[in-house]
């Protein structure tokens, strides 16, 4: 297919490199894209999903929305505004939007960056986006901790359950226990109740008292406090029992969840012996917060740091610049902070990019930037507090017995990981991976990475920082798509490409390619 091959090689930026490429169209990416376009920048948005919104802004397909009006989540109004502005900018050509495209790697070409994309489930070659600047708004994925039975059908991720409710209004079960740690659990439990499920218990491994120890942070974030109270009240009305300092330490059922064991846990999240009790349910929504999606950033060479929640995140300055010139980031990649912070940071990053393009701060948006900076500081402080309160205690490792699967892709148990550590001398996640294949499967350690790191480290390491994995390509890519990037192809292929000049962009790509 010489035609499609040459098209795959054509840069989507057109004649000149696009001003700004935004990777990800969740709250941060959308806010950044429309703000940058307002400033007159040429923006290309690349997003893996079929429709904009990311993990947070999800809308049910139209036919379902008609049946269940009012099911859209709170905050959707902000989304509508962003969509309206996006549509207007797309109409003028200011924003070019690539949905269903995944950036698998980014490479320098002179002063520009080349974003290499794939499209479709299979990972077929997509256009290359040439850009002078990159804004990473790649979001996050769910952090999981393994325990006996967590792979039984009917156990779903808490964020996954929320996403299911938002996009398809599908309930994971009729009687759903919500467990794990973090404020997301409350939102999930409320959504489940609203969608008609019974939620017998919300099981939180930390305590909410941790928040009270930082009154000034709370005072600076009244909205968060209000939200927490509102959720608390809704849960009380629905008869949801909130069990803090507790964890689901086992799931029971053969083919399907039938019950869970809830145990009290101490400050280190170690189960209190004899405290386990059984709760009957047909589904479990479990999650331990989110972890930033950093593959591209790490490959580009951006510095990372470890946030209070124990997960690595990008090191950013006040202008949302990463340590690599020409690369900004907004939202979860800089540390998990939620939708409000993502919106603030997306807009702030776009103002910063515009200021750099114009060679100095912009007077017309100075006031706006100041208030965004204030909001960011307050919300980042809250995010750190939240991360510290809900950071998994080291005792969670006692939940997983030797038969508990940790890496589901490669079916690696906690016992094998422990053997790799005690017998073979592995003391970090990378070496455990080399010895056991944990993290080498389909998800490339996105699900088990945190748990493997925790199981590999000894207590004497203290809070030794997990270093983010280098995982290129950032998503699976067909070998034929990779081969399509080869510019040293045999003469036949080159001739084939030149026979279909119409498929190539006028700017060509010869000059933008490394030899």
């Amino acid at each position: 297919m010489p035609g499609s091959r040459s098209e795959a090689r054509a840069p989507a930026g057109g004649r000149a490199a696009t001003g700004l490429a935004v990777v990800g169209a969740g709250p941060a990416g959308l806010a950044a894209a429309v703000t940058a376009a307002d400033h007159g920048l040429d923006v290309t948005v690349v997003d893996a999903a079929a429709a904009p919104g990311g993990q947070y802004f999800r809308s049910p397909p139209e036919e379902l929305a008609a049946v269940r009006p009012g099911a859209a989540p709170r905050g959707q109004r902000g989304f509508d505004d962003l969509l309206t502005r996006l549509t207007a900018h797309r109409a003028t050509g200011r924003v070019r939007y690539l949905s269903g495209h995944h950036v698998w790697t980014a490479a320098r070409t002179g002063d520009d960056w080349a974003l290499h994309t794939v499209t479709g489930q299979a990972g077929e070659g997509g256009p290359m986006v040439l850009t002078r600047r990159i804004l990473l708004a790649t979001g996050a994925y769910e952090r999981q901790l393994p325990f006996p039975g967590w792979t039984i059908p009917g156990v779903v991720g808490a964020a996954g359950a929320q996403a299911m409710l938002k996009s398809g209004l599908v309930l994971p079960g009729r009687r759903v226990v919500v467990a794990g740690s973090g404020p997301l659990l409350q939102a999930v439990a409320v959504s489940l109740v609203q969608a008609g499920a019974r939620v017998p218990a919300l099981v939180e491994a930390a305590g909410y008292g941790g928040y009270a120890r930082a009154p000034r942070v709370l005072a600076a974030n009244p909205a968060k406090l209000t939200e927490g109270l509102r959720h608390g009240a809704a849960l009380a009305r629905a008869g949801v029992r909130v069990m803090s300092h507790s964890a689901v330490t086992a799931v029971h059922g053969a083919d399907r969840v039938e019950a869970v064991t809830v145990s009290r846990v101490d400050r280190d999240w170690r189960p209190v012996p004899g405290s386990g009790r059984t709760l009957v349910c047909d589904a479990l929504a479990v999650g331990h917060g989110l972890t930033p999606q950093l593959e591209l950033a790490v490959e580009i060479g951006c510095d990372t740091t470890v946030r209070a929640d124990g997960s690595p995140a990008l090191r950013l300055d006040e202008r949302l610049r990463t340590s690599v010139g020409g690369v900004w980031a907004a939202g979860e990649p800089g540390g998990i902070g939620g939708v409000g912070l993502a919106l603030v940071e997306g807009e702030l990053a776009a103002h910063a990019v515009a200021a750099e393009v114009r060679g100095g701060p912009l007077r017309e948006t100075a006031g706006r930037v100041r208030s965004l900076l204030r909001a960011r500081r307050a919300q980042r402080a809250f995010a750190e507090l939240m991360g510290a309160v809900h950071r998994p205690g080291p005792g969670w490792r006692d939940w997983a017995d030797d038969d508990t699967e940790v890496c589901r892709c490669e079916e690696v148990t906690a016992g094998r990981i422990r053997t790799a550590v005690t017998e073979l001398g592995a003391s970090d996640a990378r070496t455990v991976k080399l010895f056991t294949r944990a993290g080498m499967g389909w998800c490339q350690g996105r699900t088990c990475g945190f748990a493997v790191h925790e199981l590999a480290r000894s207590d004497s390491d203290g809070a030794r920082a997990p270093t983010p994995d280098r995982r290129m390509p950032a998503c699976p890519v067909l070998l034929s798509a990779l081969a399509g990037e080869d510019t040293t192809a045999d003469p036949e292929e080159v001739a084939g490409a030149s026979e279909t000049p119409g498929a190539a962009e006028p700017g060509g790509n010869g000059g933008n390619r490394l030899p």
Partner: protein
Amino acid sequence: MPIRQPVDVVVVGAGVVGAACAYYASRSGLSVAVVDRGPVAGGTTGAGEGNLLVSDKAPGPELDLALLSLSLWRELAEELPEDIEFDPKGGLVVAAGDASLGALSASAEEQRASGVEAYHVTPDRLRDVEPHLAPGLAGGILYPQDCQVQPALAAARLLHAARRAGALFLPGEEVLEIYGEPGGGGVRGVRTSRRELAAAVVVNAAGTWGGRVAALAGVQLPVQPRRGFVLVTEPLPPLIRHKVYAAEYMADVASGSAALQTSPVVEGTPAGPVLIGASRERVGFERTLSVPVVARLAAQASALFPVLADVRVLRTYHGFRPYLPDHLPAIGPDGRMPGLFHACGHEGAGIGLALATGSLIASVISGEKPALDLAPFAPDRFDPLVPCHMTEEWAS
């Protein structure tokens, strides 16, 4: 306050070569400490495919070393746990045209005279040997002696066995100094970030970083990184039985050029993914993924095995082969500093050559006659100040 410990031998580096040195040295009754700034198999060992090859070696000292090592691997495969995944899968080298087939057959003839098993495979039989090979190839040579191991586990298991024989393993400790007798005498020990190890023998098994360790002892060893990328596919049912590579691979291995060379090297693994190599380029310790390199590997692999075109690549990784200018490792005592031994610079063949290297080093340390002549591997052969019979060859 550093701890001071006396041992007979300090091995610097916990890759497969260091593990092999520790294994054989501790089994010959020496007390051994293995020091590495990182974990076991944290360098090039953990970034390789685990090749134990004779097929890619021309007759000469490296082939002799490979044949010795292979016999040791076969022995050890009986003793070490199965998880080292020792697989006597055999290698298949294929030629696209008659010219490369002619060259391949000629080199196979020479290899046979040195004890390598090599069988000609006619074009019509190629797909009996490898059912998914592309049509139209001119022929190939089957090398049944070629084997594979899981390199990281092999290193870890060797080191584990060495520890059971009494060796001490000190991961996460960097060697900061190799000190000797005052006035230019022999080695007396090493200082690490945590302790002092008094020892009359230090073995530099630091692989690609061997030049830096040599410099700590005040001697020069020109080890340079030669980068390679490997593509890892999604898990597949068994598709590829042998290690399969194109005849041009041998020329690439032997090339001294810093520029990029790629030739298709394709093989399956027990866990299912297919591994695709091999690229060689000297670009320092550059870690960024190179799109042109992986693209070329992908194109060449799918030309050799068209079935792979529709397979997804889940991961790529890179490693830095320890390159010495004449493609031979540095093995043996360093004439410039008594007590200093080198066991590094094996380029892309370190897994395969590790056991012979370790066993030869242990013999010399114990005062026994080594099973092979070590002169071609003399670590000081690159030093213009050392009068050496090898000097003229590499200096030209």
